[in-house]
């Protein structure tokens, strides 16, 4: 799989009790949806483990295999943001990742501020879709 950008394939937002709130896939991931989403889901265990010891919200790379890499960010309220990228992709410095997660966190805040959103339910939001689109296009 040749990927020109940052290689981001999938973004998942998972609630405190591991309920999936939102997920977005890049066009490159459309053929391997199950695989990528499963990978993101599997990574959650490690995210939980890391989050207890972490000193900041950004957890860095939490898991990888021969195809994918997984980065995570946990908000202080326990919401987990997981980003799956292609394992071959380069140019993913921590500072860039922090910026990406910060942007996602901001979009998530805007999305849950919608008065018609019920807390804990899956999110439908143009804020998040837009933010994800920008990240995938980077």
């Amino acid at each position, binding site marked *: 799989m040749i990927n020109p950008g940052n290689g981001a394939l999938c973004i998942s937002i998972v609630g405190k009790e591991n309920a999936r709130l939102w997920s977005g896939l890049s066009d490159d991931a459309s053929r391997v949806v199950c695989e990528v989403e499963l990978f993101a889901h599997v990574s959650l265990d490690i995210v939980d483990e890391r989050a207890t010891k972490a000193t900041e919200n950004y957890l860095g790379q939490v898991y990888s295999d021969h195809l994918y890499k997984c980065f995570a960010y946990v908000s202080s309220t326990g919401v987990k943001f997981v980003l799956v990228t292609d394992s071959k992709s380069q140019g993913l410095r921590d500072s860039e990742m922090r910026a990406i997660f910060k942007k996602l966190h901001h979009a998530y805040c805007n*999305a849950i*501020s919608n*008065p018609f959103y019920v807390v804990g339910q899956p999110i439908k939001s143009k804020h998040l879709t837009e933010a994800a689109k920008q990240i995938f296009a980077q």
Partner: protein
Amino acid sequence: MSKQQKPVGVDAKKMSSELFALTYGSLVAEMLKDYEDPRQVNLQLDKVGFNMGIRLADDFLSKQAGVPKCTDCRQMAETLSKNVIPAYLGVSATVNNWESGDREFSLQIENNPLTEFVEVPQDLTSLHYSQMIAGAIRGGLEAVHIKVTTTAIETPTNTVIKVKFIEVLKDNLPAGED
């Protein structure tokens, strides 16, 4: 002493637009739960706005000394878009879509602070989310003896308030309740 406690650069009378937007949003969401009918919610929001409008009319006229007396709909629309809406919502509005011989027009509010985070679900298309603003305009005009009907319509980019002039009220004072 009290002067020093005030945060620098913040007008004590102004509130955060986010707090305002979230408060209004919760109000609408709660009303939808209680009334279960979006049309009923529109009516109630309109009533809330109307009661605000008849009070705000005096407030506005006392503060803005330079506003001329309106003699036709065009002047009225001009005052609403250039003075009233910026004074209370902090954003400007544009007037367009004149219809039926200058008796109907639309006020387009860009960046409506009420709808900052709002995404109205598809099954609630009959809900007029910003009807409170429309009601306030109706109330404000009724206080100066102009009867209009107003509807707030959300478009993907802005809020459009449709105003239709009905008549000039004579002799009867504005009612306290709708």
